[in-house]
């Protein structure tokens, strides 16, 4: 490869990434957060002092952290056994199950709320099931418990996915060596496997904490006002156009999140791992004759299967059932007929389902094409151990640390309203802006999965390639990328999922109904009263979303899987 191209490739990649981030992230967010340190047009600590000195806000941050901690613990408890099952056992449907663990990620929270209320409500399926075994009823709706459960629904699959990937990359030979040297299976697990799972587990836990700390729609939909979090409050302040207070809350939230990310990144960088060219640990068959059912591990997994059925399959199945049930409980196909009618309608302002599906898929593909190189570039920067690289990495991971409401407000004021530049008002909206915004939301996931994998590559492999005459870029493409393929595929799945599920910025940047995506269509149908005020049409659209996403991810995993091994 041309030496000049080689020298320029990384800097150009970094600059392109930074430019994209600047336009659709740093500038919009900065324009809002600056309000936290300004009063009357001057630098001032008044807004910060006002919030920090208010005991109400101290309580609010305290409660927000508390529910995030509970949610993180619940997500880890529910997610870990899933990773164990998927990484260590072979059974029919394992690959499919692994593919669909991404599904909760793409579901608009309004649908999760519908599913949860239908499943865990007073008259829901869960109470019906409890009644069969003579228990219950339990009152879960609008309690802290149901919020934590819904957070686990969203985030436990994250734990499962990240830990499964780490488990699959544990080198079987090292476990075998330990066993040959006399270690019991438990000791071998503790000394060889666990240290390699821990970083993935921590990544998942930190991400879960961040997400649930800034959780908003789920708390809003399942909680009621007594369970308001910082983000719910921030939303209310924005609605009331109390923007200084909103900016201050957002700035504090962002500072806390970035701090957590920084501490975590330092920890991650200290973890030394050798890897490269490993052979995965083999999987045991889950069922080997009925006798294997008496094995305590398998019994425990069976119980776990029950939990999964209730917590994951229950709400999703309830959602599908709701889409064919009238409020009176009769079977109906009206809601799907509604979707067809929307498709056929020429009325102005109508969001049609088919274009929404194609938009979703096109935007996701575009976001993927943009997010993968962005994520890899940031990972390459992060994997270099230079001074300040942790700080740089933390700042480049900032899209995970900034509240969606702050980002939305910033985008509205800078991109949608436009910015005066050389006497012209420039606006950045439409499909290209949507794709860029989705990529910015998705690339940190690529980075988070790729960085550890990149760090685990034995430097000597790259050095050997370089000394044999390969350019840096060639070494990256031919040596490193194949070694991190599994991590890339995992990151890609997240990037696509984030894009498909994204609602807030999409609806801001969409120009009219032509750029509507599936979640936007779904939201529009919730407000449609043509079949009376009920969520039927939205649940039908939710079911379509579920089906389209399932097919997409099975395809991604199959195609990616072929490339993986």
């Amino acid at each position, binding site marked *: 490869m041309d030496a000049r191209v080689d020298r320029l490739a990384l800097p150009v990649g970094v600059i392109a990434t930074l430019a994209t981030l600047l336009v659709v992230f740093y500038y919009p967010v900065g324009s809002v957060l600056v309000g936290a340190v300004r009063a009357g047009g001057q630098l001032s600590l008044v807004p910060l002092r006002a919030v920090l000195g208010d005991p*109400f806000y101290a309580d609010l941050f305290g409660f927000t952290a508390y529910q995030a901690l509970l949610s993180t613990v619940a997500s880890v408890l529910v997610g870990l056994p899933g990773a164990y099952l998927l990484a260590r056992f072979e059974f029919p449907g394992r690959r499919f199950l692994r593919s669909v663990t991404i599904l909760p990620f793409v579901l608009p929270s309004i649908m999760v709320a519908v599913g949860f209320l239908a499943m865990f*409500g007073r008259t829901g399926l869960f109470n019906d099931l409890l009644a069969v075994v003579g228990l219950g009823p339990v009152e879960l709706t609008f309690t802290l418990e149901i919020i934590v459960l819904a957070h686990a629904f969203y985030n436990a699959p994250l734990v499962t996915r990240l830990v499964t990937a780490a488990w699959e990359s544990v080198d079987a030979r090292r476990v075998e060596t330990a066993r040959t040297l006399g270690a019991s299976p438990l000791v071998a697990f503790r000394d060889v496997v666990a240290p390699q799972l821990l970083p993935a587990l921590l990544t998942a836990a930190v991400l879960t904490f961040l997400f649930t700390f800034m959780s908003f729609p789920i708390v809003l939909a399942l909680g009621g006002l007594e369970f308001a979090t910082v983000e719910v409050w921030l939303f209310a302040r924005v609605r009331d156009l109390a923007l200084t207070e909103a900016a201050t809350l957002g700035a504090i939230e962002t500072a806390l999140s970035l701090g957590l990310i920084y501490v975590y990144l330092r920890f991650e960088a200290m973890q030394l791992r050798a890897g490269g060219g490993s052979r995965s640990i083999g999987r045991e068959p889950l069922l080997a004759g009925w006798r294997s059912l008496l094995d305590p591990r398998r019994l425990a997994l069976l119980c776990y299967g029950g939990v999964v059925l209730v917590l994951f399959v229950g709400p999703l199945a309830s959602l599908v059932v709701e889409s064919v049930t009238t*409020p*009176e409980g009769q079977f109906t196909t009206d809601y799907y007929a509604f979707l067809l009618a929307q498709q056929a309608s020429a*009325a102005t302002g109508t969001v049609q389902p088919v274009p929404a599906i194609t938009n979703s898929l096109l935007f996701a593909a575009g976001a993927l094409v943009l997010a993968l190189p962005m994520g890899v570039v940031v990972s390459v920067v992060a994997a270099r151990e230079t001074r300040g690289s942790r700080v740089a990495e933390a700042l480049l991971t900032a899209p995970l640390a900034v509240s969606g409401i702050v980002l939305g407000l910033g985008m509205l004021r800078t991109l949608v*309203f436009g910015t005066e530049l050389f006497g012209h008002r420039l606006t950045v909206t439409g499909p290209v802006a949507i794709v860029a915004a989705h990529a910015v939301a998705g690339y940190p996931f690529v980075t988070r999965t790729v960085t550890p994998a990149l760090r685990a590559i034995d430097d000597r492999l790259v050095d050997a390639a370089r000394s044999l005459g390969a350019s840096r870029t060639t070494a990256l493409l031919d040596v490193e990328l194949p070694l991190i393929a599994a991590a890339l595929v995992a990151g890609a799945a997240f990037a696509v999922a984030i894009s498909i599920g994204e609602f807030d910025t999409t609806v801001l940047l969409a120009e009219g109904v032509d750029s509507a995506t599936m979640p936007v269509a779904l939201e*529009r149908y919730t407000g449609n009263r043509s079949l*009376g005020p*009920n969520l039927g049409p939205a649940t039908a659209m939710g079911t379509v979303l579920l089906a389209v996403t399932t097919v997409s991810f099975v395809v991604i995993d199959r195609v990616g899987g072929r490339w993986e091994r």
Partner: protein
Amino acid sequence: MRRRSFLTRTGAGLAGLTALSGCTGDGGDGTESASTESATDTESVTDEGTTTGTVEELSGTLSVATYSSFVGEDTAGNWLKSEFESEHPDVTVEFETPENGLNRYIQRKSEGAPIDADLFVGLNTGELVRADEQLDETLFATASDRIEGADTVKPELQFDPDGRVVPYDTGYISLVYDEGEVDAPGTFDALLEPAYEDALIAQNAQQSDPGRAFLLWTIYNKDPDGYLDYWEGLVDNGVTILSDWEPAYNAYSDEEAPMVVSYSTDQVFYHGEGVDMSRHQIGFLNDQGYANPEGMAQFADSDDAELARAFASFALTAPAQREIATRNVQFPAVEGVDPGGDFGEYALEPPEPVTFTYDELSDNVSGWIDEWARQIASN
């Protein structure tokens, strides 16, 4: 320049249309009483005269900003658009439905960004107060004296002292309850009794129209000094406060609680065969209902103000008022209009409609809501 009265209240054709969709189906005009289907119009304001066609030609594109459920298939918005366009063939009506509603335009104005909409449809008193508090310049033009028909709006619904906003419909906040589970509470004080423990679902006044109206209704009855104590009592008695009307009503439908804060037009949606009306009883408290009128106003920056006012006038004609009422399930704002049909039969009006005026809300409403929300969230 002002072209005059193009809207000599158009036509017989329109009137026929209205009657059909008003479900009377007799081809006659809707009259004072929904049950008597008289073919002659007896009122003065609903002037389905014989004039057809336009007196003066209007042309251009009118951009109407509104909320998303006002437009789409079978909505009041789309009816207005198609009728207005067929009356004025050179006019195109477009809708803008930003996610954050009126805030979008308040923010545009305060940031100096251009506003390309001509007319806003669907704002209430509290929103107008917020717009005025946020902005130094006015967002809307004083146009009501130049909007034909604005003087026919019921005086008790007028909420803008500066004559910018013209109300076009109103809802009344009430309770909807399941008479199989609870009796009508009748008074605000009754809601604190053990009989209504865990029985009520309300909405967050920070972000929900009915939620805000219900809170204001309690302030109306318990005074600004006493409402927080009253709400303390409601919370102690297990009130659930959800984010908005939709989730609240769904929770009610799922039998999470036997009462919900909603609108007195509830039964218009739910009637007919197989519908259990016992779950759709309307409960007025202290014989009141809180009026939440919706208005329209022409943007001060509109470059086609005349068209905007023409559209606003059109929305105040009797046929349009009946269509808005039935399709938007709200009461007409114009005096003497009876939507007839199912609406006339099933929409209930409170014995005593109450509401706060613009001046009473001004300087107070955000403080009231903020203190209320802090108290609830601190629980």
